[in-house]
């Protein structure tokens, strides 16, 4: 052991504590930590990397022949839906990640540091935002490989991705609330699945709403996932059977997608912050 440990106190820090600059630095540090985790355990990200490829190929080839899409082929119809489907289900990662953090010893270290608690959630949802961009991109690349084409070219794709990623960000805050409400990551995963898969399926993501039973149609029409799917189809320039239906959400998918995303965030962000506070002070 070398010379006396230098424990002289330094009063100063690079940016004043509590300032916005220091908050961003904390969020960046926590995001980097989550990315380091992914590098060590890439399997963590399989629902954003493997699932998109698998589902895209499976759905297009298994359902493709049987489905009749007014105005186009199933392949051209489905890719937009697969983007929103996959990024929605992959937000389960936020629930699991938040729950795992709360269960680990690391949270006890964070609780004695002069950091903003909110940075923990911001860092988690931001790294999951990056994951959803990756997920969406993989769906589009897979689609492109098997023959999908965006009628509106690259600008349409970028616009569509922006809407999709906004929605995924909102959903990850919802999933953060789930993660903060359960006791362990396994429960978080279970509940996440239970919540996300029905939402993702009872929508226009994988099938035109016209084919659903009468009672299910209004649910599917007002489902935010349908709004995002419709937005993507319009923006990408792909066949959009929902546009044939005469109701507000079907006629204004982009507006609905943005409104839903902002509404979900407006509700879930404060709840998540309150729940984190409750879970980290006893």
């Amino acid at each position, binding site marked *: *052991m*070398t010379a*006396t*440990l*230098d*424990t*002289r*106190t*330094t009063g100063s*820090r*690079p*940016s004043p*504590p*509590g300032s916005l600059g*220091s908050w961003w*630095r*904390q969020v*960046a*540090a*926590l995001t*980097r*930590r989550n990315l*380091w*985790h992914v590098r*060590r*355990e890439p399997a963590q990200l399989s629902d954003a990397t493997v699932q998109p490829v698998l589902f895209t190929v499976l759905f297009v080839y298994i359902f493709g022949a049987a489905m009749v899409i007014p105005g186009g082929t199933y392949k051209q119809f489905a890719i937009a839906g697969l983007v929103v489907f996959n990024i929605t289900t992959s937000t389960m990662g936020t629930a699991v990640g938040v729950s795992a953090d709360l269960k*680990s*010893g*690391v*949270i*006890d*270290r*964070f*609780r*004695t*540091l*002069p*950091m903003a608690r909110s*940075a923990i959630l911001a860092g988690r949802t931001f790294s999951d935002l990056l994951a959803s961009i990756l997920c969406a991109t993989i769906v589009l690349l897979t689609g492109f490989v098997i023959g999908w084409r965006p009628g509106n070219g690259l600008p349409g794709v970028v616009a569509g991705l922006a809407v999709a990623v906004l929605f995924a960000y909102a959903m990850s805050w919802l999933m953060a609330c789930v993660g903060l409400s359960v006791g362990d990551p396994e429960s978080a995963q279970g509940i996440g699945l239970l919540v996300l898969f029905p939402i993702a399926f009872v929508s226009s993501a994988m099938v035109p709403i016209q084919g659903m039973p009468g009672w299910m149609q209004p649910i599917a029409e007002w489902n935010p996932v349908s709004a995002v799917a419709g937005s993507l189809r319009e923006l990408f320039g792909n066949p959009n059977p929902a546009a044939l239906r005469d109701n507000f959400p079907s006629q204004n998918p982009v507006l609905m997608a943005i409104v839903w995303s902002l509404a979900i965030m407006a509700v879930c962000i404060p709840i998540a912050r309150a729940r984190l506070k409750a879970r980290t*002070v*006893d």
Partner: protein
Amino acid sequence: MTDAPEILAEGLRKTYGEQLAVADVSLSVAPGEILGVLGPNGAGKSTTVRMLTTMTRPDAGRAVVAGHDVAGDAQAVRRVIGVTGQDATLDELLTGAQNLELVGELSGLSRRTARARAVELLDQFELTFAADRMVKTYSGGMRRRLDLGASLVARPRVLFLDEPTTGLDPTSRVRMWEVIRRLVADGTTVMLTTQYLDEADTLADRISVIDHGLVIAEGTARELKASIGGEHLEITLEQPDERAAAALAPLAAGPVQVIEGGKRLRAPIVPQHGLVTAVVRALDDAGIPVDDIEIHHPSLDDVFFSLTGHAAEEPVAEPTYETSADELMPTR
């Protein structure tokens, strides 16, 4: 006028559900001092530390650390403290260096400063060889050292060590003591909780003894040991012999007790080189055969027995954040 205490707790109280973890704890630590909080499992040591480090809100009482109130100004307290507990608060999937860098950045250091500080601490704790290995691969002793390093990243004025050597093997324990001793030479104020009298004795300037959520004694190690008698010899003779006490008296540090009808003797001693040999020789010269001779070191049980009239209790379950290491270390 004396300096204001660096740590001040008055009437702290905390109940978890039905269980009163801390009943009424008051203590005071001067700047640069090391206070040892000594007590068995379930005494309320960890809960007291949690209240002083803003992790837990006291139900009653108040506490001030480095001039900041723990309830009213928690962030200010966190800026000046470092905390290490029994459970390492490390991220298993990150390397040692990454763990320290993360703590640095979250404490407000720039990335470059955090990285430099990490290198410095890894060197000082002799962990450079494992800096780029995942903490998952570290031994228990290495984890504790890294965790202690993490609590020092921001150069805290006040350091809280909650049972720093519980569950460690003897070598790691001694090593940790050395580290802690060097730590405080610079004037950091330290509050250290422990269940081991020898640890409190070795490291602390003053000791507060805590039992069932109350402080039952306070003083220097010497004062405490004086009240319980310090080290003593226990000698068992082959048969009772009334000359033994007289033979022993010159070598003892106090009155010799004769028990079991003269067959056993107890004598307080000042441990020193050659003492036991001298005792055996003295008894041998007097023609008194000795069956067994034992040096008895004062233990937490002795302290407790003398202060409370009963032994340190069996572990009372503190809330679940305590590790199972508690159950591995029965009260001595």
